[in-house]
């Protein structure tokens, strides 16, 4: 395997600046003395020190930088919990139309019937996929959906006069956004441990719930990729205590058409459209985190909701029990549009195939990787996983000193992206791996071979893993330096940009 990532030694854009260059057209059509109209106490005296560069320089700079970045379009990217799948190009192509790009959120609804119908139908499809009754498309991401969901729980309890509920329960394997979202809503976070099968410990849960319980936030399959079989029981425990059950939809890719959170007893579900429904992750975002709820929570959803009166689609702001707004306007329409296109392209058969093959790929890989020397699959070696699994490199670390981190760095040398490492925290030297359904067997086999090779290197005491990566744009990075107050540089203003 020969891989080398591009290296361009590209300076900062500000370092390409030279006074006098421009990257825009000056217009001849008016007179610039209008700037003098600005009252002097408001007028900017020094123009901002932005780069002065021409268009070609901007295009070259970012084209070069892009080559120094890894994406799904380049290779396997099995970041567990992130569902880094291939997104059909037609989704982006359709979203490039001015018929979506150049729509204003406040334009007359009569001139937005197309997008409103799309939002309405997407709401309908998503609601059905998760088995909920009503949905809001507004949240901008999963975590934002979580916060919205916790606010819905809060509204529900307050509406029932249950003011003393102030504890949100999360499993110890939960994603960091779950406790963070609960805390944002002013709630205390109560952690429940996992049992030996990696699932929620029902006894611990029973003793955790009570009159202070707001609800339980979990994902199913859980972060270990294991389906919580006892979910109905768990739901009952929570519901009996007067709490609500929140479904973190990050793992929805495992169960579409196979099981619905609604049927499992969940009251609230967020869906990460960028994970399951094909918005490319964009280097970190944008995404979208619609939140579906059962009937009893529907009244609390944020405004507006897209409705249809039999002849036209409209935005319904008239919802007196609504929690209000969690962001401006009506949500990320361009993201929802992509998800809508994705759902049409797949259809009921395709969405089910997505989950089936995502699970097949994960289990294929899990079974192959766990047999490689130094690796293991904690919490039930043989038990089926869903769309992801958490490998442990703890034996390897113990026996050879090569940690999960080093395995990850060494994987980079093979032109693949490593799994998520050191999460969930309940697995030592965790490598949380989610191949997704869009990876071919050939790519899976290549990744497996890379693990084999790294294991061999580790046991052969090669210094390759410890000194890796070698093939990337830069070699191992000094992350500590970026965090030490004395060396920290968070903008080019705190550095010497011309150096």
């Amino acid at each position, binding site marked *: 395997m020969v891989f080398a990532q591009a290296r361009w030694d590209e300076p900062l854009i500000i370092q390409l600046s030279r006074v006098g260059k421009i990257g825009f057209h000056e217009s001849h059509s008016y007179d610039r003395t209008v700037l003098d109209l600005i009252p002097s106490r408001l*007028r900017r005296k020094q123009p901002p020190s932005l780069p002065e*560069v021409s268009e070609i320089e901007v295009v070259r700079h970012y084209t070069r930088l892009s080559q120094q970045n890894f994406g799904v379009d380049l290779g396997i990217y099995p970041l567990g919990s992130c569902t*880094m799948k291939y997104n059909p190009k037609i989704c982006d192509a359709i979203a490039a139309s001015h018929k979506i790009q150049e729509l204003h959120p406040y334009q007359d609804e009569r001139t937005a019937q197309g997008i409103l119908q799309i939002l309405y139908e997407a709401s309908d499809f998503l609601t059905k996929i998760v088995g909920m009754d009503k949905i809001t498309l507004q949240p901008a991401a999963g975590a934002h959906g979580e916060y919205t969901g916790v606010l819905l729980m809060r509204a529900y309890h307050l509406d029932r006069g249950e003011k003393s509920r102030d504890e949100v329960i999360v499993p110890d394997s939960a994603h960091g956004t779950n*406790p963070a979202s609960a805390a944002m809503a*002013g709630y205390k976070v109560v952690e429940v441990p996992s049992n030996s099968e990696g699932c929620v410990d029902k006894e611990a849960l029973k003793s955790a719930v009570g009159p202070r319980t707001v609800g339980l936030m979990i994902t199913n399959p859980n972060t270990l990729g294991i389906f919580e079989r006892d979910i109905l029981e768990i739901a009952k425990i929570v519901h009996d205590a007067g709490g609500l059950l929140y479904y973190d939809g990050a793992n929805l890719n495992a169960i579409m058409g196979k099981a619905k959170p609604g049927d499992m007893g969940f009251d609230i579900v967020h869906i990460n459209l960028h994970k399951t429904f094909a918005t490319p992750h964009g280097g970190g975002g944008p995404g979208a985190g619609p939140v579906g709820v059962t009937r009893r929570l529907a009244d609390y959803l944020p405004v507006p909701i897209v409705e249809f009166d039999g002849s036209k689609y409209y935005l319904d702001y008239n919802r007196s029990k609504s929690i209000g*707004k969690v962001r401006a306007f009506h949500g990320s329409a361009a993201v929802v549009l992509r998800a809508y296109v994705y759902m049409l392209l797949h259809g009921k058969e395709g969405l089910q195939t997505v989950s089936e093959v995502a699970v097949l790929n994960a289990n294929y890989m899990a079974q192959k990787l766990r047999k490689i020397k130094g690796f293991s699959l904690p919490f039930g070696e043989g038990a089926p996983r869903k769309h992801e699994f958490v490998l442990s490199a703890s034996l390897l670390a113990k026996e050879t000193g090569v940690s999960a981190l080093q395995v990850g760095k060494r994987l980079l040398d093979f032109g693949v992206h490593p799994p998520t490492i050191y999460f969930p925290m309940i697995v030592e030297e965790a490598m949380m791996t989610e191949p997704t359904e869009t990876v071919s067997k050939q790519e899976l086999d290549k990744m497996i071979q890379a693990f084999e090779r790294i294991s061999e290197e580790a046991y052969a005491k090669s210094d390759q893993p410890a000194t890796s990566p070698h093939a990337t744009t830069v070699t191992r990075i*000094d*992350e500590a330096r970026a965090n030490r107050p004395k060396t920290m540089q968070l903008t080019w203003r705190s550095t010497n940009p011309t150096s």
Partner: protein
Amino acid sequence: MAKTHPYIPNSDESAIRQMLSEIGLQSIAELFEDIPAAIRSKADLPVPSKMTELETRRHVEGLLAKNLSTRDVLSFLGAGVWSHHVPAAIDAIITRGEFLTSYTPYQPEISQGMLQAMFEYQSLICELTGMDYANSSLYDWSTALGEAARMAARVTGRYEFLFPKFIHPERLATLRTFCDPVDIKLVEVTQDKRSGSVDVSDLKNKLSSRTAGFYLEYPSFLGFVEQAVDEIEAAVHQVGSLFVAGCEPISLGALKPPSDFNTDIVVGEGQPLGSHMNYGGPLLGIFACRGETLLRQMPGRIIGKTTTQDGKRDAYCMALQTREQHIRREKATSNICTNEALLALAASMYLSLLGPKGMSEVCSAILDRTRYAIDSLRKLPGVVAPAFDAFHFMEFTVNFDKTGKKVSEINDGLLKAGIQGGLDLSSYFPELGQAALYCFTEVHTHRDIDMLADKLRMILEA
């Protein structure tokens, strides 16, 4: 065959059989047997059957065709999302697979491209706002404001947050959902009905040792620009609370940067910097602050410059992750994970393409249109434009009370003539009467504005 799918390489029978057999299974169903029968779905998903790419495109484009975009009608809407020219180079770059299909750079060595781009974004935002630090994006202006209020409370340990009356109503609504659950009390400060200026005595009355911060929109939601910022800032800092500014970033090409007013936290909407309106989303939340103390409390991802471990080359990686949810969990400064990186990249390209001269150019184009529009509209019988006696940037309030017509009727008339009129303010701010918020940017020509004035005249005279 029924299952084989173009986006799912292992979806054909032979691949499935081979993979199953290699791991000792007979069927995919076995992999789902751990789902209790009671909750295993029996029926197909109640969504349509799959369509081909061609069918999908024709169907969806058919729906989209029902929309009228700003290329189909002349639109004068702003109010938080604005129509600007997006240089073509931006879309050409942000659609490149390497940027588009990557994620949070957890492995910095293979993600230098996006990391450097985000470091540049932070730097550019700091140059524009004059602040010390910026994060690499929040969801939108409104959530950035919510985070700012919470951060002000965290930093000061105080639980009152003040805002001016003529704030963007949806931002205020969002601020509420961010503040209510943690018992931050929101207090409205009066603004003068004639000039729009913050009523400084009211502000001073409401400022106290309980005040976490005061928020000012600059330019304001209604387009006027507060002149007494220095005075306001002094009063706010006087009581030890934070001064939070909400900025429309294009205006900072010509207006004093918030740093000149000792602003502590700047929030704003980055959409005008090279992103399309997209019916209101995705958007780009700008968040910047000054000083290290505030930095440590900042929400969101921050990228830092460092070197390789051998010290030989510059490199970039995530910094101060201990503020973030994936490390700090319930003690994090925010729950944000997925952010708006791609729009931040677009903003970097926009600011780089325009540079200092281009920002001044686009500001002067906007001021030219703003002035021309004020001159044109105020000539119409019964029309007051702007309704506030102040300096306006890009947007202003037009009052129609004396025309005897409602904004909704007027807008109906305009729409029939192919024009989307300004935002009807009558339900947001009844005290402003029949008023609408009009927006004029570089995308409008004088002829467009003449057309608006002509049609308005016809409607008002009808």
